[in-house]
C-alpha cells in the first residue's frame, strides 16, 4: 500500500532515483538467488543487471511497491538463472527433449495473496528447514524449483515414477509450510 511519504517521494523522484533505491533495497536478494542457482559470480552479476534492466523497461509502475516488486524481481531472477544454466548445458538430458526449453514461469499469486517480503530471520529458518528435509524431498524441490524441471523431467532425472516425485515435492513443501505457519 502506498502511503503519503511514498507519494511525495514519487512526486520528488525520477525513474533513475527510484531504480537506485530499488537496487539498494533488493540487490542482495536478487544476487544471492542468482548465485544459488548459477553458482557463478559473473553469471549472477549479468543476471542481476538484466533483471533490473527489465524492471525499468517493463515494470516501472512497480518500482515504488516494494513487496510486489520484490516478488517480481525474484521470480524473474529465478527464470533468468534457470535459462542461464540451461543455455550452458551442451547436451540434452533426455534424447527427445530439445537442449534449451523455455522456463515455465511460477504462478502469479491472486489479488488476495499479495506476496510479502520475508524478514531475514524467517528466510533463515526456511533455509535451515529446507536443508533439514530428507535428501530425497530436498532434491526434488531443488530440481523443480531452482532448476526448472517439470514433473516428467524430474521423474526421468531421478529415475522414479511420477507419483513418487510428486509426493516428495508435496511432502517437502508441506513441511516447509509448517515452519512458516508456526512462527
Amino acid at each position: 500500500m502506498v502511503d503519503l511519504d511514498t507519494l511525495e517521494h514519487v512526486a520528488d523522484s525520477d525513474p533513475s532515483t527510484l531504480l537506485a533505491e530499488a537496487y539498494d533495497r533488493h540487490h542482495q536478494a536478487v544476487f544471492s538467488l542468482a548465485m544459488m542457482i548459477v553458482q557463478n559470480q559473473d553469471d549472477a552479476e549479468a543476471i542481476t543487471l538484466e533483471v533490473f534492466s527489465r524492471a525499468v523497461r517493463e515494470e516501472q509502475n512497480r518500482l515504488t511497491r516494494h513487496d510486489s516488486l520484490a516478488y517480481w524481481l525474484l521470480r524473474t531472477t529465478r527464470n533468468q538463472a534457470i535459462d542461464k544454466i540451461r543455455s550452458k548445458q551442451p547436451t540434452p538430458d533426455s534424447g527427445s527433449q530439445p537442449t534449451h526449453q523455455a522456463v515455465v514461469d511460477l504462478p502469479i499469486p491472486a489479488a488476495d495473496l499479495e506476496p510479502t517480503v520475508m524478514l531475514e530471520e524467517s528466510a533463515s529458518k526456511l533455509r535451515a528447514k529446507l536443508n533439514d528435509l530428507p535428501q530425497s524431498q530436498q532434491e526434488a524441490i531443488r530440481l523443480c524449483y531452482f532448476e526448472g524441471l517439470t514433473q516428467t523431467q524430474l521423474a526421468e532425472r531421478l529415475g522414479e515414477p511420477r507419483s513418487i516425485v510428486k509426493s516428495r515435492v508435496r511432502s517437502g513443501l508441506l513441511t516447509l509450510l509448517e515452519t512458516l505457519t508456526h512462527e
Partner: protein
Amino acid sequence: MSKSGHEPFDGLAALYAAGALNKREQVIFRAHLEVCRGCVQEVKSLLQVTQGLLQAAIPVVPATSLRNRVLNSTTRTIPHAKAPAYRKSKIKTGQQTAAGPPRQRPQPTIWIATLFVIVTAGIAAWYIPKLDHQISSLQRQLVELQSDLDSSTRLTQILELEIAAADLETDELRAVLSLLTTQNVQQLALTGQPRAPRASAVVFWTDSGDSTLLASGLPPLPIGDLYQLWLGGLDGPISAGLMAPDEDGYAAISLTVPDSVTMPVAMAITVEPASGVTMPTGDIYLLGQPTP
C-alpha cells in the same frame, strides 16, 4: 483429495506452486482450479512457501561496482527524468513574485511599496493555513486514488494471466474450460489397469453430448496403434473416439457419444489399430464406471 474423479489432479497443487507443471498441464490444472476449492486452498498455502523459497538463498553481497553497472546501464534505457509540471509552475510563480514587481511595474513610491508588503503579508497569513489544509486534503485523495490504482493493477495482472493461459490452449483445452464452467457436469474416473498402472483419466460427462476425456500417465503406443475409448451400453461397447497421448502421456479428446447413450454403465480404453475397430480387441488399459 481422494474423491471420485479427482485422482488425475491429486498432488498437482504442490507441483503447480513449485512451477513443475509444463504449460499444458498448467492450463488443465487451472481449469480444474475453477471447480475444486480444496486444490485452490492448497495452492494458496503452498504459494507462501514457494514465494519464501525465493528469499531463502544464503545472503551473498555482490561487488560494489555492480551498482554502477546496473544504474549506468539502465539509465540509458529510461526516459529523461523531468521535474513534475506543477513544480515548474511553482518555481515560475516564485520568480515572478520575487523579481516581477521591480521589472514589470514603474518605479513605485515608498508608501506604495510598504502598503504592498503589508497587504501581501496579511493575505499570506490568512491564505497559507488554508492552502496547507487543501494540500493535506489533496494528498488524502491521492492516496485513495493510488489505492484504487493498486486494485486495478492487480485486476490487470489477473486478466493478463487469463489471456496468457488462453493463448496456450489448444481447441481441445478450450472445450474443457468451457465444459467445466457449464452446469450439470459429472466427473467419471477411469483407473489404470495392469497394462498401465500409472494411468488415470477423468470424463467430464454432460447431458448435452459435449463430453470430454482427460487422461494422464498413458504408456507410449506401439507404432500404428491408438487408444480407443469405449462406452459400455446395454447392447455392448460403443466406440467414443480414438486418441494418441503426447510425449508426457497426456491425452484429451471430445467424446463422440451417440444420442442413444445417456450415461454409460462402464467405460474402458484399449489399444487398437489406428483405423479403429468396431468392437474392442486389445487389452484394457483403463477402466471405470459411474459412481452410483
